C-alpha cells in the first residue's frame, strides 16, 4: 500500500485568507493511502521543503502531494525536493488550491474549502497510483540560428559566436543592420548610429563562427530543442556574390529607378543596387521586379550580337561589372536556393515595422510634407536623400516651422493600446539635433505626456525645453492642407485649456511600432505565440523574458515588444546566454511524460498516425506486422493518440488510466 504524504500550504494569506487550511489538512489525514498530512506557512520555503525531505528519509512517505499555488511555477521546486530526499521526482502530484481555488473563490470561503478538499482527495487518488518515470537524454547539435540581422540579431549572434558556437545569422535584406542602420543619431548621448553600429556589423561579418545568410528567409523549421532542421531560402540576387566586390559600378550604370526602401521612399535607388553605403556584406543585388532588361537583354538568354562590331550586346550592369559577377546569360533560378542547416537552439530577432501614415486619415496622409519619424531620421542623416540637410519633401526648401506629433497609433484604442516606448525620446532627439543645427527653426512638439524613464533620459528632455523647443501637452486632432502644401495643425493645449491652431511647414508623425505582417508566417513555422499587443509572446513577462513556450526558441529585440537600443542589446545578450545553455550542456532531457505503445496490444490500425500533431508516430514492422511506434524526441505528451487508440494500446506516462479513474472517483465521491 502507498504511503502518501499530503502537505497543505498557507501561501501566506493567499490561500489561508480564504481556505481553512487546518480543515483541509485534517480531512487529508483521513483519506485512504495517506500516511501523514502536514501544513506550513510557505511550503516552497527551505523549511517547508525540508519537511518533505525528512519524511521521505524517515521512510514515512513514498508519494507526495502538495496542495499549494500552481504547478506552472512550483512543480519543478517540489520535484527537486523529492529528488533531494531520495525519491523518484515523478512520484509527485500537485493540488492547485490557490490559482484555481482561493484566488477565484475569494467571496466564498466555505465553498473554497470544500473545493480544496476535493482537489486534495483527487490528487491523493492519483498519487497513490503513480509509478516512477525515467528521464532520457539526447545529444545536441552545437550550433545556433539567429533570425533577423538588426542590432538585436547581430549582438545575439556575436555573443553565441564568442562562446565558441557556430552561428547562422539570417537576414531578409541584402545587408545586416536593420532599423538601427537607418537612424541618424541615438538618444540620449547623440552618438552617430552608423558610427557605433558599423564596427559591430563588420565584426559579425568577419567572425569565424558566424555564417551570414543575408537576402535569405527561414522557410521551414522541423525538430525540437537540441536538434532543429532548418530550411533557409536564399533569394536570387542575380549577382555572383563570390565575385562581387561591392564597388557599386553596376548601380551607377543601371537606368531603372524605384523607391529606395532604406530611405523610406524619400529617394530612388536603381534596380541593381547596394543596400546602403556601410552594408555588410557589401554585395550588389539586381531587383528583377524593377529591372528593365536593357536593350532586350532578358535574364537567362544569350546576348544579341552587334551587326557593326560583331561583339555581344551586354546590359549596362554586366558591362560595368569589373569582376564579372553579373552574367545575364546564366540560368538563374528566380526562386533562389534552399540551404539546409542543423542547429540546437534558435534566437528570433525579427524586429518591427512602423505603422504607415495612410492609417491616419485625419493627418493629411497624402501630403508629402507629412512624414513618419523614420523618414525624418533619413532626412537628417548624412547618408540620407538630402545628405543631411533639412529640406522638406514637397519643394526641397528648408522648413521654418516643424511639428512633431506623438502617439500616432500608440495609446489609441482605434489602433494599438500600448505605448511604443521610444517615440518620446527619439522625437526629442530629432528636435534637439535640428534646433542645434538650425536655431531659427520653430519646433512644436505635441505629447499626451512625455515618457522619459531611463538613464539620463529625463535630463535629455528638460534640456530640450531649455533649448527653446515648444512642448505642448495634448493631442493633435488633425491637419488641414493649405496652399503651397503647408499644413494647419489643429491641436489642444491641455495646460492652457485651449485649442491651438498654427501653420507648419513639415509635420512628423511618431507612428506606432508593430510586428510586420510576415511575422504571422514565422510564428506558424516556429510555433510562437502572440501577446495581447500582437508581439511575440515571451514565456513569462518577468521571469522568462527571453524564452518562449517552445523549448529551444528564444526572443530578442522589438519582435517581443517595443524597446530602445540599450534594452534591445541587453535582451539580445540575455537571449544568447539562454540559447547557449542547452549547447553548453551538450544534451537535452526528454520529458518522460510522453506516450508509449504497447506493441503486443497494437493492432496496426494506424488511426493514431495522422492524429498526432507532432508527426511523432509511424508504423514499423514488429513480428512481421505493422505496429505503431512513437519517436520519443518528437512526442510532446498531449495524449491524443492515447485517447484515440481503439485497442487501449497506448499509455501516456504520468496520466495512466487507473490514475485518471482514481481522480474521477475522488472528485465524484
Amino acid at each position, binding site marked *: 500500500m502507498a504511503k502518501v504524504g499530503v502537505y497543505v500550504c498557507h501561501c501566506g494569506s493567499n490561500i489561508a485568507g480564504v481556505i481553512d487550511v487546518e480543515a483541509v489538512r485534517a480531512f487529508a489525514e483521513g483519506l485512504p493511502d495517506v500516511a501523514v498530512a502536514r501544513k506550513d506557512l510557505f511550503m516552497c520555503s527551505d523549511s517547508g521543503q525540508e519537511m518533505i525531505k525528512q519524511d521521505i528519509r524517515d521512510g514515512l512517505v513514498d508519494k507526495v502531494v502538495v496542495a499549494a499555488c500552481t504547478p506552472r511555477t512550483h512543480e519543478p521546486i517540489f520535484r527537486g525536493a523529492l529528488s533531494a530526499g531520495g525519491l523518484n521526482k515523478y512520484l509527485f502530484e500537485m493540488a492547485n488550491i490557490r490559482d484555481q481555488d482561493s484566488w477565484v473563490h475569494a467571496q466564498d470561503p466555505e465553498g473554497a474549502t470544500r473545493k480544496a478538499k476535493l482537489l486534495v482527495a483527487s490528487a491523493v487518488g492519483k498519487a497513490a497510483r503513480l509509478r516512477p518515470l525515467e528521464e532520457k537524454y539526447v545529444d545536441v547539435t552545437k550550433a545556433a540560428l539567429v533570425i533577423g540581422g538588426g542590432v538585436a540579431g547581430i549582438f545575439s549572434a556575436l555573443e553565441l559566436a564568442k562562446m565558441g558556437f557556430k552561428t547562422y545569422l539570417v537576414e531578409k535584406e541584402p545587408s545586416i543592420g536593420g532599423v538601427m542602420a537607418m537612424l541618424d543619431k541615438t538618444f540620449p548621448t547623440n552618438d552617430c548610429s552608423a558610427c557605433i553600429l558599423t564596427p559591430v556589423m563588420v565584426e559579425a561579418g568577419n567572425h569565424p563562427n558566424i555564417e551570414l545568410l543575408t537576402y535569405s528567409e527561414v522557410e521551414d523549421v522541423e525538430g525540437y530543442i537540441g536538434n532543429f532542421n532548418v530550411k533557409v531560402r536564399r533569394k536570387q540576387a542575380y549577382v555572383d556574390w563570390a565575385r562581387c566586390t561591392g564597388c557599386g559600378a553596376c548601380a551607377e550604370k543601371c537606368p531603372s529607378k524605384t523607391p529606395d526602401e532604406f530611405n523610406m521612399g524619400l529617394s530612388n535607388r536603381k534596380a541593381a543596387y547596394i543596400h546602403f553605403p556601410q552594408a555588410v556584406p557589401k554585395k550588389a543585388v539586381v531587383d528583377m521586379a524593377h529591372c528593365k532588361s536593357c536593350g532586350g537583354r532578358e535574364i537567362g538568354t544569350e546576348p544579341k550580337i552587334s551587326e557593326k562590331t560583331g561583339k555581344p550586346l551586354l546590359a549596362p550592369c554586366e558591362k560595368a561589372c569589373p569582376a564579372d559577377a553579373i552574367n545575364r546569360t546564366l540560368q538563374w533560378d528566380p526562386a533562389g536556393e534552399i540551404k539546409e542547416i542543423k542547429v540546437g537552439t534558435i534566437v528570433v530577432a525579427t524586429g518591427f515595422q512602423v505603422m504607415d501614415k495612410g492609417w491616419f*486619415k*485625419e493627418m*493629411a*496622409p*497624402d501630403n508629402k510634407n507629412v512624414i513618419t519619424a523614420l523618414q525624418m531620421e533619413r532626412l537628417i542623416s548624412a547618408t540620407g536623400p538630402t545628405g543631411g540637410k533639412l529640406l522638406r519633401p514637397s519643394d526641397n526648401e528648408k522648413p521654418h516651422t516643424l511639428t512633431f506629433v506623438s502617439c500616432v497609433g500608440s495609446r489609441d484604442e482605434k489602433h494599438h493600446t500600448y505605448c511604443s516606448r521610444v517615440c518620446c525620446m527619439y522625437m526629442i532627439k530629432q528636435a534637439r539635433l535640428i534646433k542645434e543645427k538650425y536655431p531659427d527653426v520653430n519646433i512644436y512638439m505635441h505629447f499626451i505626456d512625455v515618457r522619459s524613464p531611463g538613464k539620463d533620459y529625463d535630463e535629455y528632455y528638460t534640456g530640450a525645453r531649455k533649448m527653446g523647443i515648444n512642448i505642448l501637452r495634448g493631442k493633435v486632432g*488633425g491637419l*488641414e*492642407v*493649405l*496652399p503651397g502644401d503647408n499644413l*494647419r495643425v489643429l491641436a489642444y493645449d491641455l495646460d492652457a485649456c485651449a485649442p491651438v491652431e498654427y501653420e507648419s511647414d513639415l509635420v512628423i508623425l511618431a507612428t506606432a511600432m508593430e510586428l510586420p505582417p510576415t511575422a504571422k508566417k514565422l510564428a506558424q513555422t516556429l510555433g510562437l505565440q502572440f501577446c495581447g499587443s500582437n508581439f511575440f509572446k515571451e514565456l513569462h513577462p518577468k521571469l522568462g523574458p527571453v524564452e518562449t513556450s517552445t523549448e529551444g526558441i528564444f526572443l530578442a529585440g522589438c519582435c517581443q515588444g517595443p524597446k530602445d537600443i540599450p534594452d534591445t542589446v541587453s535582451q539580445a545578450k540575455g537571449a544568447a546566454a539562454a540559447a547557449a545553455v542547452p549547447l553548453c550542456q551538450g544534451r537535452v532531457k526528454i520529458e518522460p511524460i510522453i506516450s508509449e505503445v504497447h506493441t503486443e496490444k497494437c493492432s496496426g490500425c494506424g488511426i493514431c498516425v495522422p492524429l498526432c500533431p507532432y508527426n511523432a508516430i509511424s508504423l514499423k514492422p514488429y513480428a512481421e506486422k505493422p505496429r505503431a511506434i512513437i519517436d520519443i524526441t518528437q512526442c510532446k505528451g498531449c495524449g491524443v493518440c492515447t485517447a484515440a487508440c481503439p485497442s487501449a494500446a497506448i499509455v501516456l506516462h504520468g496520466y495512466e488510466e487507473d490514475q485518471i479513474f482514481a481522480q474521477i472517483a475522488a472528485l465524484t465521491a
Partner: protein
Amino acid sequence: MEKYGLYLGCNIPFKAPDIEQSFRKVFPALGIEVTDLPGAGCCPAWGTAPSFDLTTWCAVSGRNITIAEDLDVPIMTGCNSCFGVLSEAKHFIEADASRKKAVNEKLGLINRQFKGTSDIYHISHVLYEKVGLDKIKESLKYDLSGLKVAVQPGCHILWPSDVYHVKEKNSFFPTQLKELVEALGASAPHYSRLEACCGMGGMRSTDVEKSLELFKTKLLSIKEEIDPDCIVTTCSSCFLQFDMSQKTLKERGEIDFEIPVFYYTQLLALAMGFDPANVAALCVTPRDAIIAEIQSEARKVREQEPLMTLAPSIDR
C-alpha cells in the same frame, strides 16, 4: 428606371423650394424616378428627440422609413441633417435587437412595422454612385469650364462614417462633391477648411455670434485661398448659412465681398438648361450675374449635327 422616395425634410420645402424644384427637374432627366413619401414627418432633427431619447428618436425616424418600405423604394434626401438622423436611427435600430423590438412596439400602435428593407441615400450619393459622372457630363447643355467653385459637403454626410453605406475614402478629405462639380467642367480646388463646420445647426440656434465666428473663419479661408466664382454645397443647412450670413457680415463691415451660393442640383439644373426661375429663384446673396454667365450663349455645348447619310430609315 430606378425609383427613389424623396424625403424632403423641412428646410428645403419651407425655405428653399427652388432646391426641391431642381431635384424634380434633374433626376427624371438623369433616369431616376422620384416618388413622394406621403405623410412623412420631421426626421426628427438634432436638438429634439435625438438629443434626449434614443428609442423615441428611432421610433419617429423608423416611422418615416416605413413609409418608404411600404412603397418598396430606398429613401433619398437632400438635407444632411435628415440623412444623418435617418441613417443613424436605422443603424441604432438594426444594431440592437431589443431596441428594434421597442421601436416596433411603438410603431405597432399606429399599425406600422420597421423591417429594414429601405436604404437611406443622400442625393449626392445617388448622383455619384447611381447616376455616375459620365451620365452627368452627357446631360449638360452648358459647359462650366473656367468657373472656380468652392465645395462644401457639410458635416453630417461625412460623419459618423461607420454607419453610412456610401461614403468617402477619407472623410477628412472628401472628394465626391469636388468630382461632381468637376463633371460640370468647373474646377473645385482644395481649400484648407473644406471639412470644417459652417456654424449652422445647433450652434446657430443657441449662439449666433459663435456661429458667425465659425462661418467667417471658413468663408475667409475660401476667399483668401481660392477666391471662387461661387460656393456649391449638398447640404440645405449649409446653403442657408452661406446664403444668409454673408449679408450679415457685410452689413457689419466684417467682409467686403459676397460669393454666390448654389445647392449642387441647382448648378447642375442650370448647366442642364433648366429655367433659373424654377430651379434657382430664391437667394439673399445675389447670383443673377453668375446665372447669366452660366447660361450664356458662349457656354452652350455644341450638339453634334445628326449625320443624315448615316441614319437611313429602318423598317422595324
